[in-house]
């Protein structure tokens, strides 16, 4: 599997919806097209809603992975401004 190196990482552990997505969206807005955002979170619902919302916004979800008992990591590539 191809490895993607994130250009920026945000840790939103402790946040619940909708602030998980609000923070992720604000972060990706400030990035350049083609750059990859890494999101670390622990709110289970957001592990499903953030990928869906990012795709609704037209970005590419590269990875959603549970990395330990509590946390997920999501990689999203910015596809447009």
């Amino acid at each position, binding site marked *: 599997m191809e490895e993607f190196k994130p250009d920026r990482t945000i840790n939103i552990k402790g946040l619940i919806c909708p*602030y998980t*997505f*609000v*923070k992720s969206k604000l972060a990706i*807005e*400030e990035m350049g097209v083609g750059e990859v955002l890494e999101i670390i979170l622990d709110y289970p619902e957001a592990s499903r809603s953030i990928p869906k919302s990012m795709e609704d916004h037209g970005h590419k979800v590269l990875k959603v992975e549970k990395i330990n008992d509590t946390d997920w990591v999501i990689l999203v590539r910015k596809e447009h401004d």
Partner: protein
Amino acid sequence: MDFTEEQIQRYSRHIILPEVGGKGQKKILNARVLLVGAGGLGCPVGYYLAAAGVGTLGIVDSDTIELSNLQRQIAHNTERVGMNKAESAKLTFEALNPDVKVIPIKERLNKDNIMDIIKDYDIVVDGSDNFPTRYLVNDACVLTGKPLVSGAILRFEGQVTTILPGEGHCYRCLFEEPPPPGLVPSCQEAGVLGALPGVIGGLQAMEVLKLIIEKGEPLKNTLLIYDALSAQFRRVKIPKNKNCPVCGENPTITELQDYEADYCQMRF
């Protein structure tokens, strides 16, 4: 400018919209909007614009609050009867959202002060209740190229239109001159059911926000008419009139003029 944590929470329902986002919210926070009138229309327009985070709201109104206003002018309240309406609106809107700076302008607009007042704003909202002001604001916006979101209400009917000078129609494209005073409805006919300005003012606020975030289709060359009793909306096309005295090819109005306000002086 970065958002504070409070701002991220306050505007989260905006930020998650693809059409707004953090970028759109920053445009809203940087916007400067002038409200002409803090009455039936100005109250809901200002309320929603303040809630949305419009950074600077100028409010022009020289009138004081009367008990008969409170059936529809929702930014004011019973304790404030006798207070200037622009001052009252400032108290209400700044309490709703501390991000908003409200500038009360306790004057009556005329040809000598309007240019100096509107120069500081990006968008003008007309919620005035009389034809002299309506024509004066139209002419000033056309001459300075400022977008104008105009609303009007009477009894059970309301109208909204968005004037983008140079791009679309203006108020005079439709009616070149104010109606003679005799044709203006008499005071007895000037009733209005209290929620009507909420509908029309809400539409005006929406038009303003769309202009700020540069999304959607403004009501350009279009008059949207709401009939409350039948609960119907109609759209009427208003083509730009090449013979319009202010925005036409050979304008005859090149400087502002005042119309005498000898219409009904009864206060509601």
